[in-house]
């Protein structure tokens, strides 16, 4: 029995379930057995789209977290000579010889069209501005403490600006603004869902476990909240945020507004889970042995609920991101000088802007990618929480 020592170590199992004899523990069985968690991880790794989405989200979050480094300019860095400049092409080929050339771009020169009075841009083919990596530019603060001025890439000539996704009405680089905007849009999703989990799972668990009057009141409240159309309710609540609040407070207010509806869904999920789990025989067995309610919740309910809650929460993130985008797009979400993807899309609110400056739709592409990635991830996690199914 002594050789049992250490056999509790999960690490001795290898992840892919390959036949492996465990000499140390002296177990008789030759096939090693996987724990539930290991089965779950395997299942997740097999879902290619979910894995890909997970990697994509990690990259997107990393980029927005270090926005100052990845963005060539800051969010407020404007150039009045290049308003609504179209995206500039990064070139890798020498047009004369046709051979490879280190990345460069042609600067744009604005010219007023005297018939339409539009500012039209043409490439200045005479000049080649090399694109430089780790270029010194505008100073920024990363992670709130590190002050630095090196950017991943940028124009080697500070006088000639590079806008790979075009610029806006004040000549600010759209790509940089999208990266900064991601900080708000993506974090709203995370914070909103954290509040959702905290409120929703606690209320849901309590109302499922105790039932009775509390459950009744909570369920009627949830039904009331959910019977309002979602967007108008969000708008009404967002409109209640005082206009004199500083932008950071408004941001927090928006997070709370978005969580206000989302917690109801999660709370119902948690309640349903508790209702089903508390009738399982292992809970009865614990009760028959005299286990306290706290112990049953801690040992039997929470571990069996956690994975379902995570799935629901993951699928609630894109809803929150879309909610923030919708509110900001309509001008009642986060306020300038903060940037978010929805707020950037506000530039495309007029049809003539979409026709004349179609690149103002780029933020929408990022919203699309983030939302799709979260949905695939949630889908993969949903398969994962039931590791025994085929």
């Amino acid at each position, binding site marked *: *029995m002594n050789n*049992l020592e250490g*056999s*509790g170590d999960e690490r001795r199992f290898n992840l892919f379930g390959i036949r492996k004899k465990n000499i140390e*523990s002296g*177990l*008789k*069985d030759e096939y090693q*057995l*996987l*724990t*539930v968690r290991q089965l779950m991880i395997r299942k997740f790794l097999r879902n290619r789209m979910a894995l890909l989405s997970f990697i994509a989200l990690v990259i997107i979050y990393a980029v927005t977290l270090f926005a100052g480094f990845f963005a060539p300019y800051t969010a407020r860095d404007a150039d009045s000579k290049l308003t609504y400049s179209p995206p500039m092409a990064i070139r890798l080929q020498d047009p004369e010889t046709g051979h490879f050339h280190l990345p460069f771009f042609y600067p744009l020169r604005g010219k007023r069209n005297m018939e339409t009075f539009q500012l039209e841009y043409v490439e200045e083919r005479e000049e080649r501005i090399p694109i430089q990596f780790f270029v010194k530019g505008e100073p920024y603060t990363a992670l709130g403490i590190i002050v630095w001025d090196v950017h991943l890439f940028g124009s080697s000539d500070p006088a000639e600006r590079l806008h790979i996704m075009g610029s806006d009405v004040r000549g600010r680089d759209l790509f940089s603004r999208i990266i900064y905007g991601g900080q708000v849009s993506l974090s709203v999703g995370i914070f909103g869902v954290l509040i959702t989990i905290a409120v929703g799972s606690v209320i849901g668990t309590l109302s499922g476990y105790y039932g009775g009057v509390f459950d*009744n009141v909570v369920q009627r409240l949830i039904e009331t909240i959910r019977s309002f159309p979602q967007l108008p309710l969000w708008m009404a609540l967002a409109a209640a945020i005082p206009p004199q609040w500083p932008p950071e407070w408004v941001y927090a207010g928006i997070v709370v507004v978005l969580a206000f509806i989302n917690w109801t869904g999660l709370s119902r999920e948690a309640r349903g889970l508790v209702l089903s789990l508390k009738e*399982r*025989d*292992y809970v*009865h*067995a*614990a*009760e*028959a*042995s*005299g*286990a*306290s309610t706290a*112990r049953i919740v801690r*040992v*039997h309910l929470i*571990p*069996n609920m956690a994975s379902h809650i995570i799935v629901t929460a993951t699928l609630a993130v894109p809803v929150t991101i879309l909610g923030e985008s919708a509110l900001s797009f309509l001008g009642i979400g986060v306020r300038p000088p903060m940037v978010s993807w929805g707020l950037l899309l506000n530039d495309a609110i007029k049809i003539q802007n979409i026709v004349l400056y179609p690149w103002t739709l780029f933020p929408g592409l990022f919203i699309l990618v983030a939302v799709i990635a979260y949905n695939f991830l949630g889908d993969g996690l949903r398969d994962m929480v039931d590791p*025994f199914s085929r």
Partner: protein
Amino acid sequence: MTPAEKAGADAILEIQDLRLHFPIKAGLLKKTVGYVKAVDGVSFDVYAGETVGLVGESGSGKTTIGRCIVRLYKPTTGSMHFRTEAGPVDIAQLDKRELLPIRRDIQMLFQDPNSSLNARIRVGDIIAEPLEIHAIGTADERRSRVEDLLEQVGLGAEMFNRFPHQLSGGQRQRVGVARALSIEPRFVICDEPVSALDVSVQAQVLNLLADLQEELGLTYVFIAHDLSVVEYISDRVMVMYLGKLMETAPTRKIFEKPAHPYTEALLNSIPKRAPGGHRKRFVLTGDIPSPVNPPAGCVFHTRCQYAVEICRTETPPLKPLPEDPETSVACHLAEEVTLQPYYTAEERRNLESSRA
């Protein structure tokens, strides 16, 4: 244990007029509109060291009685006197805190080992849970106790770190047995412990339960819907129908000389193993009536082939047969009708000799 010994032995559990009525709530204000009479006036004694089989169809209330005894449910009325060292204690109305010491003596074995073991917890920790709840021993002592238990139920200590899904159905039920026995109870409610298992495994688990009973001097209440399982393990059988006891008798008598038409019907539902061909069978048709509105008079009269007028109006009490006090029956016609046995005494002897 022979009936004579039993008569001398003190009852470990005395149940008097146990009733459990679940309220049915309806409407916005959750008004009580009726009651499900799951258990409706049941009295019986259980003697130390014996196995009492509790049989009946689904919905007869047998599981509910089991859950009342382990106090997963609180009975509506009635008393359940459980014998402790300090004398009999009525456990029917105790609160959670007062019950805690009693729970060490009464454990339950569940029907479906898939749902009775938490998939997230290792086998060793599952078995140790009752020990932890009652704060018995140190972590090391608990571990060695669990390893002993694993050996005792025929699993081997190396199962300690397995998860339930890594075990077969029979192994899981053995884990359930080990958990129930971990705090050394004297009294175990076995709630259809083998009905979810393969037939080949059923016998193994039944043998294990019988061996443990002998070893540890346990008392079982064995709930089952399969009379052949009950025949194997029980000393006495109680037949339930719609929350009431229909007949109680020593196991052999139930099979050789059923005294209640419902018992006869249940026996008829067992495929006969002895050679000698098929009898004309009376097979129960229809479903058990709703326990919300049980039939007036004898609750079985709606499906009874012998029912007469008095059965529809008067409820027969459970009383001993004059010629055979070991058997108690709740039937007006107990002394009038002759019921078909499952086998005659002679057939049984033949069967036993062929088994041996």
